[in-house]
């Protein structure tokens, strides 16, 4: 199978700033690929390279086996859902959606038919005559999606498309995007800084930090087997255990990660800890614990008796839950 998008040693420099630093990346055909990272980590720059808005300073990009660098955006069969939607304010919804068809010279009747279909696909029928400015954030998002899909792109790029929506709408859109992806079978490349979004939606996730890809893998791999302190910390805020502590419990002097939900409270035995803070999260409670010189976070079910701040507790975890990371001491 050919890769939908292939980056080899792609760098993008702005003066002295390395927005992308020798990035190697492979997005497979038909997969839902998430690019995750904090702001300024290079994930959006990476997306803009695929769209063609920016050219790499060095390196090579292929889209479905064809060289992409030097090819302008309008000759790439790749469409983008922009972060703030970028709907044309002077056009109504139908004309926004039909824009790509109008550009390609599809006659009016035909393009309005296709646009109406696309609006139906994103569950937004009957709003065609409205202006972009008259729509809610969620509706604009759907229009932007319909507009990007109407050209039948080989790759759909989504640049933090759910960032501006409130939580409930965001969760709904996440579901709909996943359904849409299954329905259409095209490659989705999704940029987000929200690890939950990336983990719940994507087939594979690339984690970016400071212009580099630090880990690529399935959500399970990224979550269970982070390869560095950064990944462990960024994805689900794992406990990072320093090498000297790991040496005492595992015998290996390596950095390791321990998920907060792997820590259990016991009556006695295990490690002694002092509760520093306790946050009630509904079904579970998040505890901050002092274990000697170490600060650990634990997520325990709220059904058990939750210890109060300042109380002494005993904690333990399974040996296999401690994940030794590639990053050395």
């Amino acid at each position, binding site marked *: 199978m050919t890769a939908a998008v292939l980056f080899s040693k792609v760098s993008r420099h702005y003066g002295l700033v390395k927005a992308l630093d020798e990035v190697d990346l492979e997005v497979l055909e038909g997969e839902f690929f998430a690019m995750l990272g904090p702001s300024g980590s290079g994930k959006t720059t990476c997306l803009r390279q695929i769209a063609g808005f920016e050219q790499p300073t060095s390196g090579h990009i292929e889209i479905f086996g064809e060289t992409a660098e030097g090819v302008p955006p*309008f000759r790439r069969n790749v469409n983008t859902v922009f972060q*703030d939607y*970028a709907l044309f*304010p*002077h056009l109504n919804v139908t004309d926004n959606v039909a824009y790509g068809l109008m*550009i*390609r010279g599809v006659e009016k009747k035909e393009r309005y038919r296709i646009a109406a279909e696309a609006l139906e696909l994103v569950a937004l029928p009957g709003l065609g005559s409205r202006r972009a400015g008259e729509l809610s954030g969620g509706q604009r998002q759907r229009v932007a999606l319909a507009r990007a899909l109407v050209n039948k792109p080989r790759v759909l790029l989504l640049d933090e498309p759910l960032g501006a929506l409130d939580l409930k709408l965001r969760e709904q859109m996440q579901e709909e995007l996943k359904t849409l992806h299954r329905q259409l079978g095209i490659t989705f490349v999704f940029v987000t800084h929200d690890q939950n979004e990336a983990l719940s939606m994507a087939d594979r996730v690339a984690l970016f930090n400071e212009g580099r890809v630090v880990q690529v893998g399935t959500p399970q791999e990224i979550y269970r087997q982070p390869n560095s302190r950064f990944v462990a910390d960024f994805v689900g805020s794992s406990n990072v255990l320093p090498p000297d502590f790991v040496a005492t419990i595992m015998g290996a002097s390596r950095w390791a990660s321990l998920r907060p939900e792997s820590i259990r409270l016991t009556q006695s035995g295990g490690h002694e800890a002092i509760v520093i803070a306790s946050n009630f999260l509904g079904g579970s409670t998040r505890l901050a614990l002092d274990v000697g010189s170490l600060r650990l976070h634990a997520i325990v079910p709220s059904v058990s008796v939750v210890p109060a701040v300042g109380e002494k507790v005993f904690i333990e975890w399974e040996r296999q839950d401690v994940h030794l990371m590639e990053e050395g001491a």
Partner: protein
Amino acid sequence: MSSPAEAILPGRQGVLRRLADTLWRHPRLLLLLMLAPPVLWLGVIYLGSLVALLVQSFFSIDEFSGLINYEFTLKTYRELLIPANFDILVRTVSMAAAVTLAAVVVAFPIAFYAARYARGKWKAAFYIGIMLPLWSSYLVKIYAWKLVLAKEGILNWIFAKLHLTWLLEAYLSIPVIGGNSLSVSYTGTFLVFLYVWLPFMILPLQAALERVPMNLLEASADLGGSSRQTFRHVVLPLAMPGVIAGSIFTFSLTLGDYIIPQIIGSSRLFIGQAVYSHQGTAGNIPLAAAFAVVPIVIMGFYLWMAKRAGAFDAL
């Protein structure tokens, strides 16, 4: 714990405080106070004189005594339609249209550059470059152009040095736009109008282009639009309010000007000159008023057409 701070802070005492509080509680009163002087100025002085002008145009002049006959009549407007006067209208409107069109074409790339690419120092240089001509006297600029365009002028000299005098001669021999020399041709008048009014086109256009978000251009390219298509379908429609604002300036300023065509151009009259001569030496105030009404009507019609064509849709 020390004593808590007061919940309501004491203000300044006296009349001023009471006035400030009253204005704060009645924002409409404040608005009224601020708007009253300009509204009086615009409403009474400007609109008043405009109405007076309009009324004058419906009077007529007694051909024998030269006195104004204060009776409502359309006779003066009929007079506008006699060939000598109607030529003036056609000439002026054609010139204004040509100047406006050329100003859009010349101003667009400059405004686009300033709005999209110029930053910091270059932006400052742009503003100074555009505004500087506006700081010097209008008459000085026109006479400077006279020196450039005259038969013994700089342009002729350059053409001669380049052995292209024949080209200039060929151009000047074209009827209507040609003439004895550039400084006494419609081309000369056109060039000077274009130069003098250009800043009034560039500035609104630049402001309009600056408000076009960059990502709309990217969205258009993303959906397959080449640079030309993006310009045609996104940039131009969104910049249209700026084009209209600029064209209101260039169009109406050209319609009303009476100095440029007098100094540079053939001696044929423009509306402004007609108004000037009729209200002055000829003493035909009604006809002068009727001439002056024409640009107002044309501008009203122009804006109405622009609105109908959707030029303000992007606002």
